[in-house]
């Protein structure tokens, strides 16, 4: 029972024994929580920013309130864009942290292979984390059969944001549920001088469309196989996905390619939420908070979301998701406090802090009434679907860059010849990336 708390039996300390005893007591009470007898500094390697950073602070405060003898210390990484470089640099330069935030399954594997992550499987069992998190979340945090991450928030990546006023202007009263309905609405939007879809293809967000189309045409299992390179990128499933996307482009979905390539995801968000020049944007749930805090829009009133439309290929019960997790690091010096935090993060108290910050919590103890309309809609949609982690975060770093650049090329030339060239280029890179 205590193996998750005290990793080396020979190094059992008095404090660890106390924590173990406390955990046993908690288990007997049926509550997966640690008592307040953990102590010392708990070091978090933190790269969150903006409103998410506020939430992390609130979580730290909540945990310290429940465990007054623990003091949170942060190693803050100020980053723009992909944070992995900064995290690697921090770890290589000898920073010692007990826990850190991760959102990339491929990075989790890299860290695990380097011996930096602790196996949290024993903690899952001993602290009965399964009472608060379903096995699906355990699976999402697992790499090579070992649990390395405890998910604390997730986002629906198959959600399309739209402004209600824009749809009203185009005469669209109901959300299109099928692909054909969705495409047929393009004419109404174009007639209202609205470009149906905003795609910010400057760096990465254009790939969202490829991923959702792929999963709806081929299912999550095949998507997982593609991510693991069990099937080549020249496979028909990839080509058919791009052909389906090309149909959208030919139907006038997205304006010209150069405009897409000039926009990042935030420009696309502005085009939908602020200017109303575009109809939909498929993007992560952080856009929900942005729309409220930056654009001053009211969730569920001024803007809303709808799930990716059904394509009728037998895989319409899928959602693309992202998630953030806390992982335990082997280089930390306070594993007892780390385990206490990783347990506490699944509780109702922590989940409600997450919900109050406009994000979805995976904990089944969360008070769903705290969710805004949009977050609630996303949680409802994801909870009834098979989920697939966003593909870009599953690919090796070397490959993901090429994948995104080649999809930019696809936007420039969505012809069959262009699709062949794009899939061959990604496959050539994939052949050397694993």
């Amino acid at each position, binding site marked *: 029972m205590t193996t998750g708390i005290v990793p080396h039996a020979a190094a059992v300390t008095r404090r660890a024994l106390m924590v173990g005893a406390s955990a046993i007591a908690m288990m007997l009470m049926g509550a997966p929580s640690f008592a307040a007898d953990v102590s010392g500094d708990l070091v978090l390697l933190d790269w969150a920013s903006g409103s998410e950073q506020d939430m992390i602070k609130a979580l730290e405060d909540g945990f310290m309130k429940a465990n007054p003898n623990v003091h949170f210390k942060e190693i803050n990484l100020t980053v723009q864009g992909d944070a992995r470089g900064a995290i690697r640099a921090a770890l*290589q330069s000898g920073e010692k942290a007990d826990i850190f935030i991760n959102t990339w399954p491929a*990075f989790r594997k890299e860290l695990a292979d380097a011996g930096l992550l602790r196996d949290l499987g024993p903690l899952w069992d001993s602290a009965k984390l399964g009472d608060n998190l379903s096995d699906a979340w355990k699976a999402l945090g697992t790499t090579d059969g070992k649990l390395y991450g405890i998910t604390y928030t997730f986002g629906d990546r198959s959600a399309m944001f739209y402004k209600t006023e824009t749809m009203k202007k185009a005469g669209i009263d109901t959300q299109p549920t099928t692909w054909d309905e969705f495409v047929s609405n393009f004419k109404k939007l174009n007639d209202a001088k609205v470009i149906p879809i905003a795609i910010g293809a400057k760096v990465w967000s254009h790939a969202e469309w490829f991923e959702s189309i792929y999963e709806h045409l081929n299912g999550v299992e095949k998507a997982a196989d593609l991510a693991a390179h069990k099937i080549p990128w020249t496979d028909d499933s990839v080509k058919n996905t791009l052909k389906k996307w090309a149909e959208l482009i030919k139907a006038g979905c997205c304006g010209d390619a*150069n405009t897409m390539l000039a926009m990042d995801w935030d420009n696309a968000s502005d085009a939908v939420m602020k200017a109303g020049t575009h109809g939909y944007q498929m993007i992560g749930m952080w856009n929900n908070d942005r729309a409220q805090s930056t654009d001053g829009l009211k969730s569920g009133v001024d803007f809303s979301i709808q799930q990716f439309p059904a394509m009728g290929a037998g895989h319409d019960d899928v959602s693309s998701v992202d998630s953030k997790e806390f992982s335990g690091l082997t280089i930390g010096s306070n594993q007892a406090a780390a385990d206490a935090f990783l347990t506490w993060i699944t509780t109702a108290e922590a989940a409600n802090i997450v919900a109050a910050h406009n994000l979805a919590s995976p904990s089944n103890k969360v008070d769903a009434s705290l969710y805004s309309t949009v977050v609630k809609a996303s949680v409802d949609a994801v909870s009834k679907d098979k989920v697939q982690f966003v593909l870009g975060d599953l690919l090796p770093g070397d490959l993901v860059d090429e994948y995104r650049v080649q999809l930019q090329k696809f936007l420039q030339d969505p012809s069959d010849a262009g699709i062949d060239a794009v899939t061959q280029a990604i496959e050539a890179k994939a052949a050397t990336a694993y």
Partner: protein
Amino acid sequence: MTDVALQSRGGQRDTPPAAEGGARERTALRRWIADAPAAYLLLAPVLVLFAFSVVYPLIQTIWLSFFDIKGLAKPRFYGFGNFVTLFYDGNFRQAVVTTLLWTVCTTALSVGAGWGIALLSALAPRQTLIFRFMIFAAFGVSEAVTGYIWLGIYRPDASGLLNSLLYGIGLGQFAHPWLGDAHTAIWCLIIAYSWAQTGLPLLLIYAATQAISKNVLEAAYVDGASPLQIMRHIIAPLSMPGVRVALFINLLGSLRAFDTIYVLTAGGPVRSTETIGFFMFRESFTQFKLGYGAAATLVLLVAVLIVSLPAIIQRTAGAR
């Protein structure tokens, strides 16, 4: 002086020339031995700093370039493999071409504009003071901030300054997603970067024009030369030392440019604005292929040395 010293020590004037030369060398050697410790002691702080901040990172970079490093995985000795891979990497070859275009154009534009403004300013120094100050102020703005300023100008939507201006003056048909089009993005970057870099050449060349003797200018006026002739035949040729220094500094700056590119296009669209510096960043810090990035760094270093060495040799040729 040496002879006097020898005589004062009882040296004989009839000493054979060879022996005299040998004694002279021995004395010089003794003096060097006597002076060297003091000289090195005084130089030591700088040498130590130089060793830590330049020599060690350079050796480390060279060392890294011989390893295959992917993320946090264990490094694997790769010999010259990274350099061979670079040679065959289409993205790197494109980055080299882009770097050449970028470096030549930004240097020519910024130094050319700085030179032109400096020559005009030399004719009316007082009247152009504020103008010069404003242009130089742009040089004081960080490259990243410059990038954000121009991002606002080039935005593809109606809130982009350039496009809204075009719409405002009835030329809306020329509005364009400037940074999304591979054909226009690199030129937009070149304009933005050159704008920010014009201040230094202006300052250097203007200073060179102010060093021109007043007598020369007055003589030209007396001889009836027009302002245009004075500019063409006197100020322009005599401002060349400033132009050479400006060319050297801006060339090096352009080769190493990164921030403006990162903010404005992130190397896109489709890698069309990716220079060697950006390539190095992407490989080293986004993909964390430190060995490969180090190899690219060394290629960039060689390019910088090729540009620098002639200028350094020329500038130090007269020094003893």
